[in-house]
């Protein structure tokens, strides 16, 4: 899109030299990718979604009953809310591994402080606890100068332990009707309240990324931390804000999950940290940071929910769900790489085909480019 909007003279005057067929092709691909909003990164999640929905239409038509769609949307919502915050964080080049513990701790604090109170106070307390824990994460990362991955790994242990200590290792019963309704209720037996909250969350994150300065700073920080810093962006503030936002969203997800389960448990959200990252990655956001897609994340959260639900409907042993999840992660990434501009089994172009180097300690993805074997160097 950038190409055409820039109004490159070559294109406007139609004075393209003969040898630039490659340029035309590139522009064409770009328009197809950009205009139709079907970019390579998101291709995997679209194809897998479509394939699953078709298969389910033939093999398990009960999938398309209103009651079942309601279940799937409800499953999408809670993971989706966490993944929305994670998408923004990953775009800035950070991770939050502590979401698992925040999802347990926030509702536990809310229930133990205001268990008999109004639904609103429970909700607010959970969100505020999430904000507070996000502040802790943000301070450790920005003031303590600890890389986000390991900082939140530490707080994962700490918050989880505090949740255990407060709840004495037991599940606290949630009796508040408002919270229960938020977790399980729906409009017209089709659209769960939690799903509406998820839509709102994605809307807010979209505004944050595309309409606020913060969004531009997020992408700048994620693509090159040092350049962003030199360019005058307060990188610390960006990270701090994002951890607080992620904490708040996780607090929301936590109280919704407690409402759904009718209990608040320190371990009620096992592996939500890694699952949320998987959702973000399957949706097409790069772990390298700097770019990302909220639509992809939402589609991926829906995809994970469909897989879980579909396997049950197909009468498959529920343990296969773990295997299927792994396969989907791999397939989605591979599908995003084959074809147009893809890089799977690339001709060895030396390093130029590899990933850009990573500028900070945010950990893992550098091994992404490990495939560029040196045969051609």
């Amino acid at each position, binding site marked *: 899109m950038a190409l055409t909007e820039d109004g490159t003279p070559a294109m406007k005057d139609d004075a393209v030299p003969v040898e630039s067929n490659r340029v035309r092709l590139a522009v064409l691909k770009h328009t197809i990718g950009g205009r139709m909003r079907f970019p390579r990164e998101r291709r995997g999640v679209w194809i897998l979604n479509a394939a699953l929905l078709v298969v389910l239409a033939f093999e398990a038509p009960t999938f398309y009953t209103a009651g079942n769609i309601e279940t799937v949307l409800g499953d999408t919502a809670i993971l989706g809310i966490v993944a929305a915050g994670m998408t923004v964080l990953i775009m800035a080049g950070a991770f939050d*591994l502590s979401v698992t513990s925040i999802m347990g701790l926030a509702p536990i604090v809310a229930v133990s402080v205001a268990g008999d109170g109004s639904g609103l106070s429970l909700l607010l307390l959970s969100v505020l606890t999430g904000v507070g824990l996000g502040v802790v994460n943000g301070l*450790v*990362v*920005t003031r*303590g100068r*600890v*890389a*986000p*991955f*390991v*900082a939140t790994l*530490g*707080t*994962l*242990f*700490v918050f*989880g*332990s505090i949740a*255990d*200590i407060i709840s*004495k*290792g037991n599940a606290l019963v949630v009796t508040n009707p408002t919270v229960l309704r938020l977790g399980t209720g729906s409009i017209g037996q089709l659209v769960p309240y939690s799903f509406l909250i998820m839509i709102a969350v994605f809307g807010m994150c979209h505004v944050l990324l595309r309409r606020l300065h913060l969004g531009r700073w997020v992408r700048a920080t994620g693509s090159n931390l*040092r350049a962003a810093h030199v360019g005058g962006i307060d*990188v*610390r503030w960006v*990270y701090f804000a994002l951890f607080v936002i992620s904490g708040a969203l996780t607090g929301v997800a936590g109280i919704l999950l407690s409402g759904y389960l009718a209990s608040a448990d320190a371990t009620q959200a096992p592996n939500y940290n*890694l699952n949320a*990252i998987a959702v973000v*990655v399957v949706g097409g956001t790069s*772990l390298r940071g700097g770019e990302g897609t909220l639509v992809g994340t939402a589609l991926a959260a829906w995809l994970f929910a469909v897989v879980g639900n579909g396997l049950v409907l197909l009468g498959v*042993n529920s*343990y*296969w769900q*773990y*295997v299927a*999840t*792994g*396969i989907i*992660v*791999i397939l989605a*990434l591979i599908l995003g*790489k084959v074809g147009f501009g893809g890089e*799977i*089994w690339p001709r060895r172009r*030396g390093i130029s085909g*590899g990933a850009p*180097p990573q500028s*900070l*300690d945010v*950990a*893992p*993805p*550098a*091994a*992404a480019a*490990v*495939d560029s*074997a*040196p045969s051609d*160097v």
Partner: protein
Amino acid sequence: MILRTSKRVLAADSAAAVIAAAGVFVAFSLINSHFLTRLNIDGIIVAASISAITGLGMTLVIAMRALDLSVGSIMGLAAIIAAHLLGEGVPLGLVIIAGLAVGCGLGLINGLLITMLGLPSFVATLATLSMILGVELLITRGQTISIHNIGFNKLVVTNIGGFLPVAAAVAAAVFAVVWLIFHRTPFGRHVAAIGGDERAAVGAGINIMAVTIGTFVLVGFCAALSGLMTGAQLQNVDSTIGANAELTAIAVVVVGGTSLTGGRGNLFGTVCAAGLLAAIEAGLNVVNVSSLYDDLVFGGILIIALMVDGLRRGSRRRGTLVT
């Protein structure tokens, strides 16, 4: 002399782990004399050995600037397959070989996914983490498998010469081998080179594919060994063995002074950090604090160690923000 030595210890990457481990040991022995009983110390050594072995493999992976999230699942699957085979009456030696082979095979799969398909190691091993867990559950059907083989248990907890648990000897052997591989072979230097600067490593003609696969096979082997030892120690095996062990292993490596930026690995620090974690768990148990506090203390040490480290480096280089 003493001053110089202590300065060197303080400056080393593993300083946090060494100091914290020593501090925890001294504190707990002062608080409660039961901490230094044979039984307790043996327990600490076995637990530390098990988590150190996985941590040693993980140190190499992190030195290569990759991550392996599937180690927890590999631990579980190796233990489950061993328990299953023992139940079928397969001889112990073959069972152990099979368990280790499973670990190597899974490591190979990880390595191939990363190199052939070009997936980031984080994502590839996240996928295999889930898939292997699924296989575990399919084998056990969510049940617990009991191991009725005394020899298997003895292999881990017997004291050599009435002094040192076998587990410690195994861990020491693994430490020696991994240390030699990392510090004394071209392979080890290549691992560090890839972690330090991958483009430069490519430019230098390092076979990145082979080194990556080799490292992941090694960590798979280490994880399987830990899993077998866990199974042998507990005698009851189910799919929760190794649950979240990947994050604990990463934490152990990081507390041990290995940075996630890659290029360097601190094997000795990893062992100390494993000892620290085991000492915290056993110590809190001895002084009658609920095990719910284990993670609080360990996570707190992790954060404080890194913050001190960050501030120390920050005072040297004010320019960088989040390292």
